[in-house]
């Protein structure tokens, strides 16, 4: 009897240890349609670019930084960024994300074309005030400044017939 209790105790302890050590559940930013990020306009950049600070979640610094690049593009396309020249989303069509699901899955895939329009505007360092441990220390929230080539991005989407050209109405 004692032995059974001991074995059950060990099993329970192991299960607890396994589940408590599992990484926090995190939606894949590539496919997620939720806006689990924050974008702040910093400055108007050179030659059709805009500078934003994007706060993204991840299990480590690298994940957060990669997510920030992607989230910056997503924010411009689908959400709009207050205070910037992109207050309204670039794609104003309702349900465009669903309608062009295959296009965006390819556009936002790992190493996808979205990377042609976004770059880090830092020397690779993270401002210590923009690194926050969240959810009982299992996730990180990191803010990083990125530069988005909004004019080139718009042109690409126009060429790919995702959005209409600004001059098309005339």
């Amino acid at each position: 009897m004692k032995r059974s209790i001991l074995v059950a105790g060990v099993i329970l302890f192991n299960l607890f240890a396994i589940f408590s050590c599992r990484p926090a559940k995190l939606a894949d930013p590539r496919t997620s349609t939720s806006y689990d990020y924050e974008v702040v306009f910093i400055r108007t950049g050179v030659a059709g670019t805009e500078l934003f600070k994007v706060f993204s979640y991840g299990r480590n610094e690298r994940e957060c930084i990669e997510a920030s690049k992607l989230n910056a593009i997503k924010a411009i396309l689908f959400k709009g960024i207050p205070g910037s020249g992109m207050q309204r989303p670039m794609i104003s069509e309702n349900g465009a994300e669903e309608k062009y699901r295959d296009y965006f899955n390819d556009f936002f895939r790992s190493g996808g074309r979205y990377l042609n329009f976004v770059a880090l505007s830092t020397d690779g360092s993270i401002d210590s005030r923009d690194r926050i441990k969240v959810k009982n220390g299992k996730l990180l929230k990191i803010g990083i400044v990125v530069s988005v080539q909004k004019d080139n991005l718009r042109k690409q989407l126009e060429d790919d017939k995702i959005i209409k050209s600004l001059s098309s109405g005339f």
Partner: protein
Amino acid sequence: MKRLTLLILAPLLCFSSQAQTVKNKNLRNSISMLVTKYTSNPTSAYYYANELTVPSMFDDNSLNDNTLFVGDYSITDNSSQIEAALQRNKMGQQILKTILYNARTNQYTKEVMFERGAYTATDNDYKIAMDSKKKEYVLKDMGVWLMKNIYVEVVDCKQFIDLKAETYGDYTNEYANVLNSAQQKLLTGTIYLYKLDIDEILEDQSFWNLIDFENNNNEVQKAFDNYNFKFKKINSVPFNITESKTASGALSVISELLKVDNTQPLKTDKQLLTSMLNKATEKSHAILCSSLPNFSIGQGVFDVHPIRIKVGKKESLKANNLYEITEIVEGSEKEQHVAWIRAKKVSENRFVSKGKSTPSTFYKVSGGSIKKGMTASYVPQKGYEVSVGYNEGSSLLSGTFVELTYLGGGIPKTRVGVRGIFGNAKTDVSENIFGVRDKIFFNVSNVNIETFINHTIKIGFIRLIPKVGFYYSMGRIKNYDEKGKTGLPMSDWGVTEDIKLKSWGFTTGAGVGLNLGKNLQLTFRYDYLSPLDPPTSSRTLTYFAIPIDPIFNAKGVYGVGLTVLGF
């Protein structure tokens, strides 16, 4: 006895004139250092006002002439006169002109604000500025921030006198005469810290009209010259600096004691005052600047293998400076401690930022896993350390010890210290008389004082600490032990009075330190004694008819101690 006291104090004398540089904040505000001049001057220090060195943590706003003419000297308080003199002498204009002067165009221009901003900018700031449409104007904003932090340090000297025997109250005694031979000088006074108060005119933008020199407008120049720039007193601190007229005061004292010719050349007043003024300002900075805003680096850990952070000489970083690594945790008001690190390799970053400065390298002292982007904050440490421990060995230096050391300003990582040892030594004399069967020990209660100089060498996480010192010991044989018995009275030996022992000489030794945390170090030590006067008793004891000399002259002493670092 007096000679011995002086010899014991000699290492302390060597370091007493060394200024301790405590730079407790990462400030990069600008500063001008002025020395007061009066109608009838109490000292000639103002002659050497231009010899003052602005610490590297400040932007140097030195003027062509750093003397400040105040007026009549008051023996009680000159602070209000100094404040009035700053305005009367148009110091605001003079300082702003040093900032706004563009050597390339030989004109006063606002463009230099860009350079100041770029100097202040971190690599990230610079890259963001360059990616922006406004480019340099972003950096200009940072330069404006610096304009709000312009400071003036005014050194007001009161006395510059010879420290003579009379100062010590008795010119006939030997100690006083020896001190005379050291020929020390004393400089006293007060240092005042003022801030150029232009916050209001920066807020309402009128400042820019006031310095709009680019159009060569005489009216602007006139308005600028006539403007009454005010100064706000931030802090003040008195100073009291002594310095030997010779290259080494301690050497003078020792030469006098040993009756050796000491032909060291005397320092000139210029050398003395220049050095003493700089020491006074260096010593006062930590107190004066304690109320100034922190210069926030705002950058975290840049890299973790090895640990690298983008701070360097521009932020007054020095090798072995202690930093705390913390991180922001959601829902917690206070940042969470992660680890302690110390600077290993300090980078040169005292140039205008171009976005590619070299980070400094650090090593971990203790704590958890350090990640990229965590906060690194400088933790000021003062020069004192205290140790307690125990020495084991058949010598007068055995027993419990308390040790106080002080980090001198001269030789890096070198400390001067004093140690008191109180305890019980034991000497085995059994073999002298009875062989191994009947062991007899003499017990001594002893007290020692030791002064020393040690130096810390880092080898990974271990610290090797060699030292040299001088000790003076006194002991008293209190009882004796036979095998299996303790504390038998000395009267058994026919002794009716205390038997006193004394010894003095040199110690050489080394310690191995292991850091247990931010401020705690465990040290294992070995001291080797070289007595100049070995500890023999004043009389020979006899057991029956056998003569016995209790000698406490074991050469090696092992010790273990716990040190509280830098408080």
